[in-house]
């Protein structure tokens, strides 16, 4: 926490001044993006017991846009994502401070309806985490929990969501078999289908493709791109080419002295073509990490 000094050296001091252009959502992005702010982090810090994982992050994310979070391993990208749907609550010893606003509502407020929040914000993890049940049951559990009980509707929802992730043809004959029997890639796509089935507003994807082969990865990428405009997507990726292909905005995180920080944030083409921060250009060209 005593690191504010070095932080302010790294980027222009940010006083939450709404007019300060370089830290506002960029209205110059691709056209499908609406210019309104959907999610906003103010002075977000995350501490694991005594380890400061993320410090003073200020970030606004536009509605309907795809924002890619990039940065080296351990810089706090996953932690950032988990704070958005308050999964950090579940981690022992993890403390989040600052303000997180979704549609202007502070989700850090004490009486936030977390179930509603998490329906609103879907999430996919780095490692595929299917439930140890049948494929069908994996999708049915969230559906039933959110009030869908009709058999026909259930079946069609399941089919649609599996088709969306390109898994339907592969598993349609073994919907009742254990999901853990799927290969890693198939499992990850199932997780994606499971999150999509709830039609969330915001989708948090933590390296969704790192366990997928290029073809599945391509399917998923296409799917993500097709969500643009309807969903706000925040995706963590190690694959800069992927970020370049699909992202409207890119945010670069970096661990300075072991403390994760937001280094730069802007429209994808700006970040990739004329990065303002030297770390960004170094990272993009692959010379630093």
């Amino acid at each position, binding site marked *: 926490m005593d690191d504010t000094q070095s932080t302010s050296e790294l980027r222009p001091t940010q006083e939450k001044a709404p007019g300060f252009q370089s830290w506002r959502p960029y209205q110059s992005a691709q056209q499908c993006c609406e210019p309104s702010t959907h999610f906003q982090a103010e002075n977000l810090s995350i501490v694991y017991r005594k380890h400061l994982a993320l410090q003073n992050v200020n970030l606004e994310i536009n509605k309907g846009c795809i924002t890619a979070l990039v940065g080296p391993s351990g810089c706090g990208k996953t932690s950032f994502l988990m704070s958005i749907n308050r999964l950090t609550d*579940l981690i022992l010893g993890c403390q989040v401070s600052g303000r997180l606003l979704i549609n202007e509502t502070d989700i850090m407020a004490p009486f936030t309806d977390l179930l509603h929040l998490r329906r609103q914000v879907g999430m996919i993890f780095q490692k595929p985490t299917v439930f140890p049940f049948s494929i069908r049951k994996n999708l049915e559990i969230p559906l039933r929990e959110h009030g869908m009980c009709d058999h026909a509707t259930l079946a069609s929802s399941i089919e649609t969501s599996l088709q969306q992730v390109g898994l339907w043809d592969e598993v349609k004959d073994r919907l009742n078999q*254990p999901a853990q029997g799927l290969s890693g890639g198939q499992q990850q796509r199932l997780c994606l289908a499971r999150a999509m089935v709830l039609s969330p507003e915001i989708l948090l994807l933590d390296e969704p493709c790192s366990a997928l082969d290029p073809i599945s990865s391509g399917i998923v990428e296409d799917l993500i791109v097709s969500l643009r405009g309807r969903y706000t997507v925040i995706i963590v990726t190690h694959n800069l080419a992927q970020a370049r292909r699909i992202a409207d905005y890119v945010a670069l995180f970096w661990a300075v002295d072991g403390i994760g920080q937001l280094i730069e944030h802007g429209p994808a083409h700006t970040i990739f073509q004329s990065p303002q921060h030297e770390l960004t250009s170094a990272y993009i060209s692959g010379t630093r990490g």
Partner: protein
Amino acid sequence: MLSPSNTIGETGATLMVWTAVTLIATPFLWLSGDLLWYGWHQLSINFVVSVPQNAGREGGIGPILVSTGLIMTVCMAVAMPIGLGTALFLSEYTQNDQVSGRLIRGSLDVLAGVPSIVFGLFGNAFFCQLLGLGFSILSGGLTLACMVLPILIRTVEESFRAIAQDQRLSAAALGISQRATIQHILLPAAIPGVLVGCILGLGRAMAETAALIFTSGYVDRMPTSLMDSGRALSIHIYDLAMNVAGGNSNAYTTALVLIGLLLIINLSASWITKKWTTLNQLPS
């Protein structure tokens, strides 16, 4: 199976393991051989359903089986919800270093060590006398429930804790409520553990003598209500073996029935576990 190797240590370990297994299997086979040898020839449907006569030397064990079943039902009906609930509370809502969790866990650990005869004394003082239930199946079942609770909770809690945190995180990320997470994710995944807990508990309860002598009583009549006194199988065996001259062969046969019952419970539990695993999980 893992790969063995030819080193001396490896051979030593293998030898040790097989020796241990033989050492355990021998008395077990001997014991069960004895039981079969002396008890088998009397075993018949008639023995199982008929009423004991001449202080148990003759006749069967019908009413005793019914009493035992009722005692076990009371015991499990009380212990299961409390046990499951407490295990869930301990694994999902408390931390290892939290006072409430530590208190409950500590007291359960001590409770697990309380000798069954002390439970018998407690049950007699509390259920039979203070609550006025008298020598009855209800008192016996409740006393046994107190006795098996710690084992049940411990085993069930372990199996809840064994579920990867990832599962809870992804359930939470789907906006699934705590109740639904428990119902749909945790409980199904912990079923085998719960079953093992129940088997251990039921096994201990079935085998119990000391706690029942002072609570459910000695009457070998067919019970007509839970408030009736009823003799459990193990007490019947004890009485035949220790108190009735010439009760040996019926004691052997009753022991055989009791063990047969336990075998059935075990087999059905492992059948359910297996069914469950093939249904829901990758064959391991």
